[in-house]
């Protein structure tokens, strides 16, 4: 998808107007290995860009999740509670994590696919 953007901390986001969907990248899920649990916030909470909003736990590691933008959480992927493995099998689709309503502007440091690829390969 051309309009997917990325962060250096391995989250992805898509933007439709004010509505932003967030997940973790294919590279991130591959590095983590089998995801077994996600600790996620409740809808309604406001996040600022770069704020920790949860934890993804795999058989190998537990890592913080960071919000790529400032906004209010409008939805949390409830399917992940029972099926955390969706993060591995479909990171850009059914494995989405949060939907947010953007507050203000998109941060300037988001990466496009080519730039993220360089980060992932570094």
């Amino acid at each position, binding site marked *: 998808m051309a309009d997917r953007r990325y962060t250096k901390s391995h989250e992805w986001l898509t933007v439709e107007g004010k509505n932003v969907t967030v997940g973790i990248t294919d590279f991130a899920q591959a590095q983590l290995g089998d995801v077994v*649990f996600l*600790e996620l916030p409740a809808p309604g909470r406001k996040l600022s860009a770069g704020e920790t909003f949860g*934890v993804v*736990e795999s058989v190998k*590691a*537990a890592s*913080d999740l960071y919000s790529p933008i400032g906004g209010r959480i409008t939805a949390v992927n409830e399917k992940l509670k029972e099926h955390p493995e969706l993060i591995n099998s479909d990171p850009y689709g059914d494995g989405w994590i949060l939907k947010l309503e953007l507050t203000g502007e998109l941060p300037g440091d988001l990466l496009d696919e080519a730039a993220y690829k360089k980060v992932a390969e570094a």
Partner: protein
Amino acid sequence: MLAALGVSSMDDLLIDIPRSLRLSALELPAGLSELETMAQVKSLAARNRVFADRLTFRGGGVYRRFIPAAVAAVTSKPEFYSAYTPYQPEASQGTLQAIYEFQTLIAELTGLDVANASMYDGATAVAEAAMMAHIHTGRNEIVVVGYLHPEYLEVLRAFSEGRGIKVRRGTEPNSKTAAVVFQQPDFLGLLVDAAGLTANAHSLGALAIACVDPISLAIVAPPGEYGADIAAGEGQQLGLSPSYGGPHVGFIACRKDLVRRLPGRLIGSAHDSAGRRGFVLTLTAREQHIRRERASSNICTNHSLCALAASVYMTYMGADGMRQVAEVSFKRAHALAERLAALPGWEMAFPERQFLNEFPIRVPKASAVLRKLARKSILGGLDVHRWFRELKGVLTFACTEVNDARALDELVEALA
């Protein structure tokens, strides 16, 4: 040895220690044989005043109870007794299963979904429960309602201080309250409105933490029944001797959705590659090992041998046995309360409140009463004024199944 280390004398070896800090001579008496040592220790021990269990009427969190011989027979097996952190599933199925049984028994007793492998004692169990509530709700205040064991409160305050959590004794939680903590029955032995306190906490989005007496759960509603989120308590009464206050065992149980906040370790049941049932360490919060800056708890151990004693006790006594213990204790305490309250100048401190096997009674000259009883080899009640200003002259007396009918007579006669 010195030559192997490349130094020529002891002085050279100790060169890094300033001379002023070194011992010049150890003035120890000549060695004693084992026989002589035992004789000396026995003569020292004989100077202790030891109150017989049956003539001990002091509780306050630690109780004399009958301990079946089966408890020591199991806990003294070297496989349990001497093994240290044996958690490799391929080598330690017995230990892991024993812990799993403890968790199951505690979950059943408290009526909650899941219990951990044990805590140090009741005080740390309550404090850890409060930390769970703080992390879960993101709120910074703990409200302690009524008479929580004062030493538990002290430990709770110590845990809270470094995390910027405010601990407040009061009755009313508010929207900043992470949890309401209450003890059932309370430190004085009185029953509290656990269901009402729980509902009140929930109405403000706070968790309800019930500090409970495990024996009492055989005859009063367990926390799971009135909707408490976390139950914590002291397990000494389940097969452990008072022994100067420890080692004892704490327990903590919670609703399933709080399981990730549960401190310490949890043993789970699983199947091996051949499909056989087995037990493994599971769901130990990652935070405690690899994300310590985010941990809700830094407890990485438990009191396994004490928890094993508790498991043997509960299994051996069974539901009927525990109910019988609780009922006998209840009856003895009520019989005693009636007789003590009839003594001149004695009166129940809270006559409108109900109790199980411990009760507060107001007496003329508390310290004189305790001295008088001690002279007759009876350990009287606990003077709770030491912690609570409003309880001047109040002693709490406890009865268990070991205080036989004749012991009650002796106590009352000693006071007449």
